[in-house]
Structures are given as structure tokens and as C-alpha cells.
């Protein structure tokens, strides 16, 4: 790990001012410190966000939807009963994420921005394409955990469990930097690394996520989340599926279907969503959506199993919205 300085500002404006080049925001540190230990991140200055007023906790004002502060520890989302009633998918998606210890330290903002888990990426000695090298080692190497969909030069997968769940509810994020504020759809934060874009998200330098928002209308959806992993706890998703829809008199509206662990970005499948619109999530519709969700999949040498796994998981998750 390189030597670095550390500050813990009290206000957002101080924080933003401190985030000049060479500085890195520190939330729970569960991803960033690992990257630093492996020599993959070398910030000169760590700006600890946990002392900033107003970035932690969540609220739901009448008619205004849900606001979750970016510094809220994951465990708080998981445990709050009121939140669970408002948006059960949060607990569902977090229960199998990492471990209780990591969820206690880890925050929402950090989870949204965690780096991918490709073992070539995490290996300091391997200068792969994403790290500025010339080739992706996973494409022709050990790729049982890699992408089957939507990949360009890099076949790493989006690792978060929370993100697909939030995207299924059309979550937005509020961003702040010393130059101003903006909001965007959470889904738009992510890019599949390609061309000159050798990164997984479009956050600008010096920019912070302050809040995650879910609209009142989205909260009316019913949601479901499933995650397949190789052991029962403490492992990343082989495949995860988040689905949500407003179900009125047995008919689905505003269907959302988002997969994790299969593509470099959270993989939203609009074609499958459209096919389900107006359906009752009957067996046939769910099975067809599952097929659509995997359309264009291109498994690598060792990850062909992800295809049937994802298909089945999509089918089950969709069905679970009505049975």
C-alpha cells in the first residue's frame, strides 16, 4: 500500500473541495482498502466521507418517494422494518451480499461504485486491458465467473447485488461536485468498458454520490430478487436477478428485469420487460421472458453454465412475483 494522507471533513462542501486530483473518497473502505493493499488504487489523499452531516440515513416523505443517503451502511437498509415494508427488495438483495461484517462497514455509495472482481484485474502483476494493458486475459483464460452478455474488450461482470434491485425500481442518484449538482438514472452510471472508456462507470473526477432516490410510483411495484452463489454465504453472485412490476388485478405493468453477474453492467433486458407487459406472469410468459433475457448470450470457455442458470433464475424470479 502506498503512503497517503487522510482527512475527515465535516461538511459536504469541504469534502468536495478536498477531492482534488490524487484524492479518493473513502466510505466504508471495504473495497477501496483492498484495492489499495493490492496496489490497484494509489490515492495520495483519502477523504473520509463518514463524518459529513446529512449523507447517512434514509427518509420517506409523503408523496416524495424514498431517499437513501449514500453513506448509509448497507446493514441499515437491511434491518429497517419500515424500509422493508416500503421496498422489500432491499433486504432481499442484501441478505446474501458479502457478510454481516462487510455490510456493517460497507455503504450504499461504495456498493454502487465497487470495482469488478475479475481475478486478473485484482492481480497487481497482471496488466490487463482494463488497467491500461493491451489484452483481456479472461477472454481466453480462466473465465468461469465472467460475462456471457454485453461485453466488449473487457468481460468482467457487474458485481453488486444492490444495484440490480435499485435499477428495477428506476432509482436515480444525486451527484455533487465542486462545480455543481446533477442527477441521473442509476442505470446510466454504468458503462461496459470499451474503446477509450476503460472504466465501469461515468462518475466524474471529484464527484460524489450523495443520495439514491426511488420515486413514489416505483415504490408501488412488487419486487423479487434471487442470487445464485457457489456457497451459501459470503460469495459474489454467479448470477443475480432483480424483477419488479406493478401488478393490478393480476396484470403486470412497468415490468423491470435486471441481471447481475452476467454482463459488465447491470443487465437490464427491455425486450423481456416488454414481452411481460400486460401479462399475468404465467408460466409461459415467464419462460419466454427468460429466453429473451439471454438472447445474444455468448458464453466463454468455462461459463456456459451461466446461461441455463440465468434463464432458470429469471423464470423463477418472475414467477415468484405472483406465486
Amino acid at each position, binding site marked *: *500500500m502506498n503512503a497517503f494522507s487522510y482527512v475527515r471533513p465535516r461538511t459536504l462542501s469541504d469534502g468536495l473541495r478536498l477531492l482534488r486530483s490524487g484524492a479518493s473518497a473513502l466510505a466504508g473502505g471495504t473495497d477501496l482498502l483492498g484495492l489499495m493493499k493490492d496496489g490497484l488504487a494509489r490515492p495520495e489523499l483519502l477523504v473520509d466521507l463518514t463524518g459529513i452531516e446529512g449523507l447517512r440515513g434514509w427518509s420517506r416523505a409523503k408523496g416524495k418517494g424514498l431517499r437513501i443517503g449514500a453513506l448509509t451502511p448497507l446493514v441499515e437498509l437491511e434491518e429497517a422494518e419500515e424500509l422493508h415494508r416500503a421496498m422489500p427488495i432491499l433486504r*432481499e438483495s442484501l*441478505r*446474501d451480499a458479502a457478510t454481516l461484517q462487510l455490510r456493517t462497514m460497507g455503504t450504499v455509495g461504495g456498493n454502487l461504485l465497487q470495482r469488478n*472482481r475479475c*481475478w*486478473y484485474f*485484482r*492481480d497487481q*502483476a497482471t496488466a490487463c486491458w482494463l488497467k491500461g494493458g493491451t489484452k483481456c486475459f479472461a477472454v481466453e*483464460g*480462466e473465465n*468461469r465467473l465472467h460475462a456471457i452478455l454485453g461485453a466488449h474488450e473487457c468481460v468482467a461482470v457487474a458485481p453488486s447485488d444492490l444495484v440490480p434491485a435499485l435499477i428495477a425500481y428506476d432509482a436515480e442518484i444525486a451527484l455533487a461536485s465542486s462545480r455543481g449538482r446533477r442527477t441521473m438514472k442509476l442505470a446510466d452510471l454504468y458503462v461496459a468498458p470499451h474503446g477509450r472508456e476503460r472504466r465501469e462507470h461515468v462518475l466524474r473526477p471529484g464527484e460524489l454520490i450523495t443520495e439514491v432516490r426511488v420515486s413514489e410510483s416505483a415504490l408501488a411495484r412488487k419486487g423479487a*430478487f*434471487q*442470487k*445464485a*452463489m*457457489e*456457497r*451459501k*454465504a*459470503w*460469495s*459474489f453472485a*454467479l448470477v443475480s436477478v432483480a424483477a419488479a412490476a406493478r401488478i393490478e388485478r393480476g396484470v403486470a405493468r412497468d415490468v423491470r428485469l435486471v441481471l447481475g453477474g452476467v454482463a459488465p453492467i447491470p443487465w437490464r433486458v427491455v425486450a423481456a420487460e416488454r414481452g411481460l407487459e400486460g401479462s399475468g406472469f404465467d408460466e409461459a410468459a415467464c419462460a419466454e421472458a427468460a429466453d429473451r433475457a439471454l438472447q445474444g448470450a455468448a458464453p466463454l470457455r*468455462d*461459463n*456456459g*453454465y451461466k446461461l*441455463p*442458470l440465468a434463464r*432458470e*433464475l429469471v423464470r*423463477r424470479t418472475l414467477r*415468484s412475483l405472483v406465486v
Partner: protein
Amino acid sequence: MTLAPPRPGARVKVRGVIGEPAPREDAVPKVKGEFQYASDLWREGMLHGATLRSPYPFARIRKVDVSAAAKLPGVRAVLTQDDVPGKKTYGLMDRDDQPVLADGYVRFVGEPVAVVAADTIEQARAATKAIVLEYEVLEPTFDPIAAIQPSAAKLHPKGNVLERVRILHGDPAAKADVVVEGEYEFAMQDQAALGPEAGLAIPREDGGVTLHVATQWLHEDLDQLAPCLGLPESKVRIVLSGVGGAFGAREDTSIQIHACLLALKTRRAVRMTYGREESFFGHVHRHPARLFYAHGATKKGELVFVRATIVLDGGAYASSSSAVVANAGSFAAGPYRVPNAVVDCVGARTNNPPTGAMRGFGAVQSCFAYEAQMDKLAKACGLDAVEIRMRNGLVEGDAIITSQPLVGSAPIAEIVRRCASLPLPETAAHRDQSELPGGHANVTRGEGVVRGVGYAVGFKNVCYSNGFDDFATARVRLFADAEGPLARVHTAAAEVGQGINTVQLQIARTELGIERVELETADTNVGSAGSSSASRQTWMTGHAVLQACREVRQELVRRAEREGLTLDRTDLADLLDRPIEKTVTYRHQDTEKRRPDGQSRGHVAFMFAAHRAVVDVDVETGLVKVVQVATAQDVGKAINPLGVIGQIEGGIAQGVGLAVMEELIVEKGRIRNASFTDYLIPTILDMPPVIADVIEHPHPDGPYGAKGVGEAPTISSTAAVVAAIRAATNRDLERVPVRPDDIVFGTSSRSGWRIAPGDDPRRAVRG
């Protein structure tokens, strides 16, 4: 030898004797985080050591320049091969093929090239990066079968065949009505000890050094260390520090020689502790294997022959490969009556990470294959898995394929029957979501779940074999202080978690009839105890303690007689105005060296276990949950029943892990998943309930009839779990660990070599 313990001075009942469930003394401190592991060792002013490792699987070192590194702040020493004052190579069992620091070549990714001592660990690591190295990259060999072909490039002056064992038993050309064949693959498992390699070396006034270290065999470390340091053994003392798991990985030295070299060079205490990633590169692993089998039987399912060719990948250096190869060969046919056998077993040198000892030591690899074969045979003969094993199981007096007869064991048929009659778990319908395949809370609600049941039986030797001079020494000192008689037991037996400390205390209490018994710290100031491996410490050190205590007791009897007293009615303290001290070295009965045809009475004793696994497989997604493992194991005598259960459950955890998730992914010689985020071991939620039937069929030569316990649970539990998955999926599953891919697609991997089972793999044909 008579086995009934004497009861001197036993007027009050002594607690904590053999046969009683005795909790470990370190259990509570470990759970509370108060136990001192080797990585917690600390000394005022100590330096920190770091290792520079090879990035290449095979290369010649053209140039090493440490001058820049040596000038960095805080750096006290930078050592390369030139700075090794004594012997430049080391190795277990006199193999001596591994350089202390790279000798002009590097042969695996992670091979130590230089070591540094500095004031802080950061400075030491920075200095390793400042060492200038020029490599000439050479063509590596990773395929073990390719490595042993006559045409293969030599990877080491000692050649690429680390060991070959050929076993010929009965008629090599025997014919049978029913023949089944299979090729099996066994991936690389890691011991995954939670405590990384660590130790503290402290230079002594007399030019010697004291090393505190987490190890399995203090004296073997000493044997390897002293010559490399250029010191007589008397100037090196090794003290056992807190061991956070071993499972074979600490049989080879890791930091030992390096830390001592640095301490002697700097005249300062030096601590070395590997980080998690480095630990994966810095210790040996379990041998991966390719196994080619043919089994022949009568129509009734009675075995006629077994033919097998086994190739184990030993990696770049010998380590304990030769003994692992011998074991894989010896036990290649399983605990069955096999009149005719041909087994050819070779350990190959490659540019993969070195492999060596791990719980089960060669027996695990062959068990996976022969038990799969037994199930195939059962199917072909229309028998069930239990019946075929009962029909062929060894009974006392039967010989294994090396012609060694079975002594002092329950019949295999009885072990299998008792295992099979243990209660089965409830059906899936009754169970909690968290017990189904997938995540803790997710994935299946029972759809697509098929249950499977599988059986396996395994066996292995206890203690060292094939003529090895295997001994253990114990010193027992009995004296009286203000509180009465107190015994101190001193051995070099390494407590690595298996419970030998508790066993020693129990034996001493039993033999001396007093409750106040303490253990001295294990170190090299007493004779060797041999390794905490081969399930041998209870047998060996247990015996030594037992005999030393009996000699102490004889002296008590003499003293009592001299005073005209009867021991039973005397306060022991009255006889202890002078302490009594006895040192005994126990040797087990001689074993024979292996003959060229592999036949010999090479082993001291065997241990056996049967496992039944119940699994739920989500056949559509390829996810598995092991629901229950039942086992019957003949332990001879449960000296500490609590310890026995602990060993059985822990061994099964490792076996289950290997069956469904544990695999070191080695790509072009480099370990890809050197972390506990990527190398998965079972969590408590993955660990099924274990029901154990502990059979106590005494062995005539074991202490109180005890055999070894620790390895048997690992040997056949893996095979049982895979058999259960096969039953649920109808897939062949010829590879462990079983991956989702294998279940969903039934993929089976092929080595790409054609080898007729029993043939010499050094003459293999591609195709």
C-alpha cells in the same frame, strides 16, 4: 504389551483421563481472540522480513542486483542465494532439491528469490521491489503427463520423475466377466489454514538462533535449517508457536530458514509473516491427479482385478511427493479384497506450484477414483452401493494389494453396514429455505431439487511407512510442590489443532493417577516427536508419554517399597522429596521397505471410515447443497471422544469442500484465486450436520487400542458427496470439485492422453 492402566494413588477419582470427553485448553482463548498465534509474535525492536518471489514459472536468472534495495531507508539486510552460509538446498526427507533462495533458476511462480529485513514491513516490501532482476524466460511444462515423457525437457537436474511406484499383485493378466473403466481428474486443493505462515527468529549470544514458529514437525525443520545456516544443531532451537491450522501445509518449511538467515545476518530479531495471498504462494498444496482405472469383477460383483495408472502433479520441487505417490499406489484399490492388481503411480515434476502433504496424503486422490469405479461396477452387476462394498470389504487377515494383511480392524462390511443404518435426514419439504441449494436466502424454493444419496469407504496408513525410522520422545517429570504432586510432560509434538495436547494430558493423568499435569512448550530441547501428520501423534507421542509415565510409576513403586509402603495407600507427595524424571523414546514396529513389485508389509496400521452423503441438487441451475454426512469410523479407542468428533467433523468439512467448491485455479503455473474471496471453503451454512458412529475396535499395538483419527474423515467423504451428486443427476462426474458446469452439461474433462490402466504413464500416447 498389557493395556490396562495402573491406578497408583487413586483414592479420589481422577478427572480428565482417557475415554472422557475433554475440552481443549485453547478452545476458549481461541474463540475469544486471546490465543497467541505465530503471527502475533512480537519483540521490542524486531525487524520485519519480506520475500521477493519469482513472477515466472520457469526462467534463468541472468542478473541480480540488490545494491539499490540495500540502500533504502530502514533496510538492514538483503539476502540472495550467495548469502546462504551453509547448504544451499533443502527438502523434506533428504530430498534436498529446493534452493533456499533461487539458485540461478526459478521453477515456479512464487519461488523465493531474495529476502529482506527492515525496520518496518513496508520498508521491507519496498526493498523487495527495488531488487533488480533480469530473467531469461524458459519454456515451462505444466502438464504432468507431458513432463514425464522421455522426450520432455528436464526442469531440474534431478529430472522430472519425482517418484514411481509399481505394484504387481496376483495375475497381471487376469480376466473378468464384468469390466468398467474410467478416467478421473482431481484438481488442486489448498489446506486453507486460517493462520498464515509466521515465525520469529532471535539470534543468540553464542552465535546460534532460536526460532519460534508455527510448524508441524520441529525436528524436521531443525534438520533442514541447521545445515543451511551452517550451524550445528545444538546452536539452533526451535520452539512451537501458536498454530492456526496446518493440514500438511506446515510440513515443509516456509519462513523458517529465511527468518533465521536474516536474524543471524542482522543480529536482530526478525519476524516473518505471510499475508493471505503470499500464503497461497508460499506453501505446498494437495497433489492434483489424473487417474486411469479399470475394475474387473465376476457377475456377482466380486472383484477380480484392479488396474490403475495414477499421475500426480508434484509441482516444481519434491517436497513429500515420493511418500504421497507411494500412498496413492498402496491404497489404489481401496479397502477391498482384490486378488489381482497392477498399479503404476508416478509423481511428476512440473512448473506448477509445489505440492506436498495434505490430510489424506495420496489416499484421497485414489479413493475418489476407486469409489467411483465401485459404483460403476455395482451398476453393471445390478447391485446397490452398500451391497457391493460389503461383498468385497476386507476382513481381518485379508491382504491389501501390497500383500499386507489387515490387523486389528473391524470388518469393512460392518463399518459400511453401520454407516448405512444411521438415520437419514428429513425430506426437502420440511426444511428451511436456507438448507436448499443456492444462497442462504435465495434461489430455490424447492423447484428442480433432486435428492441423491452416495456412499464411499476409504482407508489409509497410520504413522510412517516403508522402513522409515519413526519415533517419538517424551520426558515426564513428577515432583511435588505446596499443592501436592505435579507432573510436567515435555514432548516436541506439534499441537496443530488436532488435539494432541489434550491427549497427552489425558494419558499422563490416567497413567500417573494424578490430575495436576502440565505440558511444557513443545521445542527441540527434547527429542523428536515426529510430525503431526499421518494421523500418528496419538499413536506415537501418546505411546511415548504412556511409557514414560509407566517408568515414572515404576520408580514410585520402588520408592514406596523401599519405605515399606504400598503405593495405593500412600500420598504421592511423600515419595517425591526428589523429583522423578523419565525420558522414553518410542518406536513402532519395523515396517518393510517397498520391493520392486510394490509388495511389502510397509505399513504399521490402517484406519478405515465409511461415509454416506445426502445431497440436494438443483439440477436446472447446477447448484448443490450437502444435506447430511453420516459416517462410521473405526478409531480403535476414542481417547478423547470430543476430540474424535471434532476431527471427524473437521475432516468432513474439508472433504465436502473439495467435493463441491475448493479448487486452486492454476493457470500457466500461476494461482489465480489466492484469496479467501476467490478460493471458496465451506462456511458453517454449507457444512451439513454430521452423524458419526464411532467404532472402537482396538488395535493390538495402538495405545489403549487407539488408531489414528484425523485423516480418515477426509479420505472418503469427498467421494461420497460426489457419488450422491451422481445419483441425483445421472451425470458421470469424473472430476472433483464438481462445478455447476459439470452438473448442467455433464462436461467431463479429459487429460488428452491415452493410457491403458496399469500401464506406465511415461509411455503415454496423445489422443
